[in-house]
């Protein structure tokens, strides 16, 4: 491999995750001098995060904050990882003029940076007072907070720019027109996505910010969203959180412990036309604005009929407790369904959709106040993982009649293919570009 500027050439196979390949000038600019070099690593793994391995837990504190989620594994972290409380999500486009090699290099550099951050380390050490700091620094002193970084590839990545057309999974397309959407192009699509989740907002934000910074000149943000509260449960060990409607959300979500359901509905398997994607998944995001002012002034019984659950307990209106299986056939005393025909949980249920499940992993968001209406710009930043985006299309189509549509509107959308996890020594994109 030749180097355009005569710099050192490294064998990619021997690059450690922490290290970036040196190479063409563009890539050198990308990585910054010594950012991921061996020297930096040798300089100490004393991350600025409080690392569980090196930091005594204060006052017997064994809380979440100190906990790391392994970066490497069969699947990327951040999918069935018990949902963290906070999200930062960046959708990026590859800037024009970027070559296939530039893109591949960026993915390799990102791998090292993501692995370091997930381990509670900064993306690079400070060394030269005359250089801009390698890490942006805002997470210094924050516990690692179960940070996960998950990346995905949008349909646009497989156009003619990078020679990846033959690697495009047939299922990876923009979604067809769907009910109750009025998509804002400013919040739709992207060539790449970075989902960072953590129990600390600064840590999640820091991850996306630093990957975007590293990628500057190769990728640029298309849009970004911050989530301030998880709205789904992805493990039986977690309590069900509430969305901005005040209702428990994700009671019937697929859980990490349900291996068979995950294999059936979430992980891409032998059925794919693209072997590189096996063990991965598809990620669909929907920015869903909630007209919370209107919702808040609806009377309680009506709110419960719209959702199909009791507001406080989360129990289905057919009776029982939160985790009781909804009985959609059950009639109320008036002979009509106890869970109304147009209620959200009925129309979204596997029972109503040929047994389809998706793994939801959304977050409440707000973009502040609508400058024109003075009302809240916020709602649910919906994220779901699935074996094929057609699962989401089927569900969303079924929701055309959803009583909840009066109070929500889909304003952004994106679909990504999420590659499988990595082993130490592997990099994002290795399987895709090989």
């Amino acid at each position, binding site marked *: 491999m030749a180097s355009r500027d005569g710099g050192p050439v490294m064998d990619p196979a021997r690059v450690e995750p922490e290290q970036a390949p040196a190479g063409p000038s563009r890539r050198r600019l990308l990585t910054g001098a010594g950012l991921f070099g061996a020297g930096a690593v040798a300089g100490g793994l004393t991350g600025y995060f409080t690392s569980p391995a090196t930091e005594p837990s204060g006052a017997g504190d064994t809380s979440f904050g100190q906990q790391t989620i392994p970066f490497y594994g069969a699947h990327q972290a951040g999918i069935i990882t018990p949902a963290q409380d906070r999200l930062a999500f960046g959708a990026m486009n590859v800037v024009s003029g970027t070559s296939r090699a530039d893109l591949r290099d960026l993915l390799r550099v990102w791998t090292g940076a993501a692995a370091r951050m997930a381990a509670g380390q900064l993306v690079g050490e400070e060394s030269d007072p005359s250089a801009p700091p390698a890490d942006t620094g805002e997470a210094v002193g924050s516990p690692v907070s179960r940070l996960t970084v998950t990346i995905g590839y949008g349909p646009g990545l497989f156009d003619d720019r990078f020679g990846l057309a033959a690697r495009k999974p047939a299922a990876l397309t923009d979604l067809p*027109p*769907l*009910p*109750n*959407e*009025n998509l804002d192009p400013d919040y739709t699509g992207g060539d790449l996505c970075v989902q960072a989740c953590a129990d600390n907002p600064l840590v999640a934000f820091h991850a996306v910010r630093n990957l975007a910074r590293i990628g500057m000149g190769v990728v640029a943000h298309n849009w970004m969203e911050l989530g301030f509260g998880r709205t789904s449960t992805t493990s039986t060990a977690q309590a069900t959180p509430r969305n901005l409607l005040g209702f428990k959300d994700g009671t019937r979500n697929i859980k990490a412990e349900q291996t068979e359901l995950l294999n059936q509905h979430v992980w891409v398997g032998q059925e794919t036309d693209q072997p590189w994607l096996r063990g991965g998944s598809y990620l669909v995001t929907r920015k869903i604005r909630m*007209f919370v*002012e*209107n919702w808040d*002034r*609806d*009377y*309680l*019984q*009506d709110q*419960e*009929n*719209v959702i199909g659950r*009791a*507001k*406080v*307990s989360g*129990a*289905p*209106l057919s*009776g*029982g*407790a939160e985790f*009781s299986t909804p009985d959609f056939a*059950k009639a*109320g*005393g*008036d*002979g*009509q*369904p*106890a*869970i*109304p*025909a*147009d*209620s959200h949980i009925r129309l979204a249920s596997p029972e109503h959709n040929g047994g389809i499940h998706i793994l939801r992993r959304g977050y409440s968001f707000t973009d502040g106040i609508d*400058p*024109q*209406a*003075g*009302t809240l710009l916020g709602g649910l930043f919906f994220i779901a993982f699935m074996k094929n985006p057609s699962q989401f299309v089927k569900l969303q189509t079924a*929701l*055309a*009649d*959803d*009583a909840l*549509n*009066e109070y929500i509107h889909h304003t952004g959308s994106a679909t990504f293919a999420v590659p499988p996890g990595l082993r130490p020594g592997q990099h994002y994109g290795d399987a895709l570009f090989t």
Partner: protein
Amino acid sequence: MSSDGMRWRRRGAAAAIVAASLALMASGCSSSGSGSSAKGSTGAAAASGDKSSTVTISLTSDGCEPKPATVPAGAVEFEVTNSGAGSVSEAELRTSDKAHILGEQENLTPGLSGGFSLTVQPGTYTVNCPGASQPDWTFTVTGKATGPSWESNPQLVTAVRGYAGYVKQNTADLVRHTQTFCQAIDAKDMNQARVLYPQARVYYERIEPVAEVWGSLDTSIDGRWENPVTVKSQFTGFHRLEQMLWQDNSRSGAPAMCAGLVTNERQLLTLVSKAQYNPLEMAAGATDLINEAGTAKISGEEERYSNTDLPVFAANVEASMKVVTLLQPYLRGKDAGVVPLIQQRGAAVGNLMAHFKATPGYDQTGYVEYTTVTKSDRRQLSTAVNALAEAMSKMSAQVSG
């Protein structure tokens, strides 16, 4: 949503949903069973509360599941037994928000039994047993409330009758004005059609809470590009014609589209003529109309091609204030503060709207073109409208019996 026939509900396609298939709202109020616009008096014929029900609750360390978990409204005997759970010794019936205890049996040590009696109204409740692994269990009461319904209150009966007449009259006017609008299209007088479009629209905007119940019909009359789905062939009715007149500047297909609109409106007239209303859904529908004004009109998305948002905005407000006027004699006797607050906030909206009046106005609407309303003016209007809707939302609990 309920089929009570009144609730404004901006459904998506709803083609699959006919009003008759909707669940009757299991509401905790006497009015809910009074009849549904779509189904006649089915609700009223449902479970009366005449005979008492027995519910057994067995306390265990796992919980206190009520059996059965659903009973008709009326007298209920709760029989509580402690089948040997050491740590769980009491069961309470609470409101669904758990804020209020309605009945309880305490201090049941293992082997003992006890109970309590209650007359329960329709709604969702929680059976609570502190200390159990699952302490909260849903308990549902269905059917018609016992005790006096709104139908025995002359003021409410008058209000409901008045509203039925208002809806019917406006729907008839809608058909009439739409026919005139279509005649202009047939006569290729596009300028006249642009003038007549908002004039017909205002009648629909007054009755929308009712029309929304028939979801697919509503969508075919008033659907926007994005409801139910951005597919051109499914885009019909007022807003498709609006697009033809203002954006496409073409009458190709317009005469047939307009004739179809009239057909749908006639069907609506037949339906609303048979509809039955109740005070709770009247009140909630009034709030929803203001919500609609604050959401779709302020943003300008409802009349995005014609920019005639102001007259339809005014129609939303007017129709909701009509509900207040009808319910006012009753409301004044219930809570003296509700009506003055609504009127005060309604007047504030009216004062703001007065700034945008013009003669003859944009397309002879009596108002300026919405695009000329500045962002800060829109925000002021939106703020006033939200305050009005918030005040209106206080009516539902007052009229629910």
